[in-house]
């Protein structure tokens, strides 16, 4: 039961990450390959403030949201004018740079590679309430994202993706909307990062590598691009599938490589047979 609650909480956290990633990748067409950097900023800001400076968890989480939104905006600023393919490469580079920053400059608790010992308030202290609260937050994020994409702003975002020139001709600057959505997604991702730290109890730099960013892409790619339901579906299905791997009695050292190989197969199969994912509305091609 404890493990199921833990899994449920993780699923809720990744749903928030996937929702944010789908906003930028699926709806706005910005190929983000470094989302792990913003998860890391959220997790590190929350954990550092709470553990090392004794700041209240909610305050620390809010600071994490603001910090990751800021970091997202600042990292996007120089990348705004480059084309989509090089953009993907550049965000991937951003991920590597942030990994080095976490590893070399990230604060750590004496005697470990990372941070542990979060002081969690009542709503997060035990696994049951933590699951309920995180799920509620994820649900609120899903509703918010759905509201955004169904609004006129959502239409502008899709136009930014499909016809940026036409949008510019209407007097709306596509770069402005890219910046807005990227910053908002950064804030959501940072929120998820803070919740991730609360779920795992321990964070270290190895959680925020390129592998994590690829995982996010796989989630939304399988579930479906430009679809709120797709973000949720991808995370739930893949986590369930991953967990079922534990029960077929494989030696534990093979579980990690098997998952990695499975993600590889999924990426190839998706790109070959169903580029929009299970319930997606957008076909990523160039």
């Amino acid at each position, binding site marked *: 039961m404890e493990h199921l609650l833990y899994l449920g909480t993780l699923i809720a956290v990744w749903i928030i990450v996937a929702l944010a990633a789908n906003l930028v990748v699926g709806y706005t067409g910005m190929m983000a390959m470094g989302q792990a950097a913003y998860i890391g900023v959220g997790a590190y800001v929350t954990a550092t403030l709470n553990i090392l400076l004794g700041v209240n968890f909610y305050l620390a989480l809010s600071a994490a949201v603001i910090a990751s939104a800021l970091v997202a905006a600042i990292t996007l600023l120089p990348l705004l*004018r480059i084309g989509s393919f*090089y953009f993907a490469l550049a965000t991937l*580079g951003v991920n590597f*740079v942030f990994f080095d*920053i976490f590893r070399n400059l990230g604060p750590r608790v004496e005697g470990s590679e990372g941070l542990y010992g979060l002081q969690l308030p009542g709503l997060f202290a035990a696994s049951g309430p933590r699951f309920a609260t995180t799920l509620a937050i994820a649900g609120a994020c899903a509703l918010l994202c759905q509201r955004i994409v169904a609004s006129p702003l959502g239409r502008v975002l899709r136009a930014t993706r499909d016809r940026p020139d036409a949008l510019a001709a209407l007097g709306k600057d596509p770069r402005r909307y890219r910046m807005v959505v990227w910053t908002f997604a950064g804030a959501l991702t940072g929120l998820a990062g803070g919740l991730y730290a609360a779920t795992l109890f321990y964070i270290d730099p190895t959680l925020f590598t390129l592998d994590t960013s690829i995982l996010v892409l796989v989630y939304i*790619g399988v579930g479906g691009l430009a679809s709120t339901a797709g973000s949720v579906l991808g995370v739930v299905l893949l986590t369930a599938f991953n967990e079922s791997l534990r029960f077929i009695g494989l030696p534990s050292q093979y579980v990690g490589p098997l998952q990695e190989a499975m993600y590889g197969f*999924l*990426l190839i199969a998706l*790109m070959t047979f169903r580029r929009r994912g299970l319930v997606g509305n957008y076909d990523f091609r160039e």
Partner: protein
Amino acid sequence: MAASLFQVFSAGLGLAGYYALVAVGFALIFATLRIFHIAHGTVFIVGGYVFFSLHRLLGLNVFLSAAAGIGCAGFAGLAIDKIVYAPVLRRGGGMFNVFIASLGAALIVEAGFLAWTKGVVSVARTDMLDIVIFDNVALRIFDIGILALVAVAFTVLYLWLHRTNVGLEVRALTDNANLATIVGVDVQRTRNSIFLVASLLAGLAGVLTTYDAGIVPSTGFQILFIGIVAVILGGVRHILLGTLVGATCLGLLTAFAGFFFPEWIISITFLIMIVLIIVRPQGILG
């Protein structure tokens, strides 16, 4: 101090040799076929591990094992093109879809080697390498051999590109792929030659690295990303000269950065890439 700086300089040139061998194949494939071949790093480790298994585990002669490793790498490169890229392209996938599928292929093979080696470094040599000393600076005969090999490989490549019919077709594809097809270039045959040549070179680099410093499954990704930065640095349209310039710069840079601040090597490499993408995407030679 001067002597030790010169020592670092020579180590950097040795590294540049490896980078150049990997980067030139990547550049060849990217410039002619517009395929962002992430799995080129996979080809590199296939060569390395075949060589390691034959030479170190089965005790086969070093040159025979090296030839087998390079051959298997060539075969792996062709196989990835046929099994992964061709179906994606046939079903109407674009450059971006091939890129993601390539990432998938790389993940699968890396996972396989990870399950097999459990992440332990595989080094093929068992003894120390000979050195020669000039004025306090120790040069390894092996490094000098690598530079000689690189010189030979690039000369052969130059002759292939500029003195043979296939080479002419390859250059035609670089300049204008559509026109080349119209005037009757056999794209499929040219494509096979390109993948074969590029993969053999990556296999050679893999064998050399495995002999000297050793590899882990993730080495493929690392060296490939450095190769990509080298290609962008030198300029994609100058396959041979651009790669040599880019690889030399990056080899020296990694050596000096590794000497002064080793923990930031990855960040520095990727920051250079990002800055280049923003400021001068066509590379130094333009």
